[in-house]
């Protein structure tokens, strides 16, 4: 075979795309869900009513301040998120090493809502950038995969550039199966190329420091390291501060300075109260804040100006995190994320289809098919599993959030074991059908489960419950269609 540039780059695209794509598909899918992390949390905490306004009262803030102090006495560094149009609840949160979890308070009475404990949308957010593996190796792996994505996209462009224009919107879903999958892969890749490139680039740039630390790998001389001050681990405090002064006047003053009328973040140190600008006001993810003394509430400083270099990074972060985005734009992010997920998933399928005839009997092919099944069907099944767990587990169960997450990984692990067992015993087609059946059942059954669990009234925040249930139902329906298609003989 002549080793042309197209063949050479095709090899790179296939292998880097496949090996990285196994996890990239999950990263895309969880990132897509993380666009609606707040809404997923609201679905998973149906006890928290969503009809309140964004107004705050001194009583509610006093209750929140007391809750913060109580958390600090337990060694936890707690903070407040103030109510906003998107999340009209006063929340007292702390970092548990992976997610921000805590209680929800009524923004006027300060009463604690007896909401079920859940990691919810935060879990998908954390999984998206670290696979829930912490900074090392989780973030490092995801950043490395981001680089692989950029290499795969670049090599994909090289091999497809000649046919880019004529094939721009060519889709033959009823053609031969391999042709249809390649078309789906190309159409998702070409139409959403700007989004995929931008998100891949910004995501990698944001966490590049995790992969390439600033310390030299081969130091020329070993200088004595400066002694570090004793600091608390992330999410913890060494000592609790005094009860903060009345927060309402401080918040009003900070909002005037920051130009951020709702949804601010209030952080506490032993000596200071720091009020941050909400991320919802503009694409720049600024960390503008106004600081007050924790003892008497007098203003200490305000940080509201960012030099151009800092502003550039704020824009990169802001556009990637999409916290500024109004609802229609968030749906656009969501749809683009779905396209990126289908790009990765269809790429995995195309990889297998191309090699089935020549290598279908080999052990590594069967292993690759099992891993593909685990990603393409197992991950969505596990995702729906966390939604099912949320409704099925008792509301007052202690350590509930962790159990939900454990169940997610248990379902995913079982799907992997099932896929491995059936592909290695040459029953891959049966494995696909069984897992698709599970996914179809879990997706189509979720709205019914939500309905019969009677966990919430349908009058308030109905759009969130209806949208989530509809999307789950659609996922189930797609799995059912794929299952029916798999029963037909290949064209």
């Amino acid at each position, binding site marked *: *075979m002549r*080793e042309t*540039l197209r063949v*050479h*780059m095709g*090899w*790179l695209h296939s292998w880097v795309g496949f090996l990285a794509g196994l996890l990239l598909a999950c990263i895309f899918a969880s990132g897509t869900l993380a666009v609606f992390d707040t809404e997923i949390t609201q679905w998973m905490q149906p006890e928290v009513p969503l009809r309140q306004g964004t107004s705050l009262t001194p009583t509610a803030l006093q209750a929140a301040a007391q809750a913060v102090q109580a958390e600090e006495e337990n060694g936890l560094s707690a903070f407040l998120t103030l109510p906003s149009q998107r999340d009209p609840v006063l929340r007292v949160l702390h970092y548990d090493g992976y997610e921000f979890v805590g209680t929800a308070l009524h923004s006027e009475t300060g009463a604690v809502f007896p909401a079920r404990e859940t990691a919810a949308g935060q879990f998908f957010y954390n999984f998206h950038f670290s696979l829930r593996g912490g900074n090392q190796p989780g973030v490092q792996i995801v950043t490395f995969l*981001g*680089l692989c994505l*950029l*290499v795969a996209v*670049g*090599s994909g462009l*090289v091999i497809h550039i000649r046919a880019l224009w004529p094939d721009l919107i060519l889709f033959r879903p009823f053609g031969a199966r391999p042709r249809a999958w390649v078309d789906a892969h190309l159409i998702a890749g070409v139409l959403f190329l700007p989004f995929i490139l931008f998100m891949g*680039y910004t995501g*990698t*740039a*944001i*966490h*590049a*420091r995790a992969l*390439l*630390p*600033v310390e*030299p*790998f081969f130091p020329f001389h070993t200088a004595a390291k400066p002694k570090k001050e004793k600091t608390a681990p992330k999410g913890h405090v060494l000592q609790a501060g005094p009860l903060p002064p009345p927060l309402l006047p401080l918040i009003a003053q900070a909002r005037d300075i920051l130009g951020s009328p709702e949804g601010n973040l209030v952080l506490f140190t032993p000596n200071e109260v720091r009020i941050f600008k909400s991320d919802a006001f503009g694409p720049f993810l600024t960390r503008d804040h106004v600081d007050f003394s924790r003892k008497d509430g007098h203003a200490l400083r305000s940080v509201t100006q960012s030099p151009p*270099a*800092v502003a*550039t*990074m704020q824009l*990169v972060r802001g556009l990637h995190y999409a916290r500024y985005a109004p609802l229609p734009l968030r749906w656009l992010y969501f749809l683009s994320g779905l396209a990126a997920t289908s790009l990765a998933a269809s790429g995995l399928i195309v990889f297998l289809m191309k090699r089935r005839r020549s290598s279908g009997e080999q052990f590594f092919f069967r292993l690759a098919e099992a891993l593909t099944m685990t990603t393409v069907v197992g991950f969505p099944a596990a995702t729906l599993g966390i939604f099912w767990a949320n409704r099925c587990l008792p509301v007052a169960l202690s350590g509930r959030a962790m159990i939900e997450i454990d169940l997610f990984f248990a379902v995913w692990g079982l799907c992997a074991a099932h896929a491995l067992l059936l592909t290695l015993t040459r029953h891959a087609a049966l494995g696909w059908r069984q897992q698709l059946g599970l996914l179809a059942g879990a997706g189509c059954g979720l709205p019914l489960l939500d309905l019969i669990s009677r966990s919430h009234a349908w009058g308030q925040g109905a759009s969130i419950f209806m949208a989530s249930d509809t999307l789950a139902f659609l996922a189930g329906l797609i799995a059912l269609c794929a299952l029916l298609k798999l029963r037909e003989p290949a064209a």
Partner: protein
Amino acid sequence: MRMSRTKNLGMTAPSALSASKKNQKRQAVLRRLGLLAVVCALSFLTAHLIMLDAQRLPFEDMRLKTDLGGMVIAALFPILVLVGFAGRRHGWGLILGLVACGSAVLAGIFPF
């Protein structure tokens, strides 16, 4: 690819042809893997040197310097890998990678 029917057909068995084809394919894959490993190592070293160079930028904020270094690396690393892997004729891809790496070394040595 069409197989040529030559006079030596009796001397070259189909299995030997297939084995030779397989061997050629294996060698091609090994060559590609070797090239990819070298290119990745070179690109990674360049990226690391750029991150170190970024620490000399005239900003006080350490985090900002690493962020800016990260932005350069996220753009440069895939390009270096693609160019290094694509440019096989006369090894110009590798030469370009070496030039980039050398430039990063020089940028670290000389003041700017």
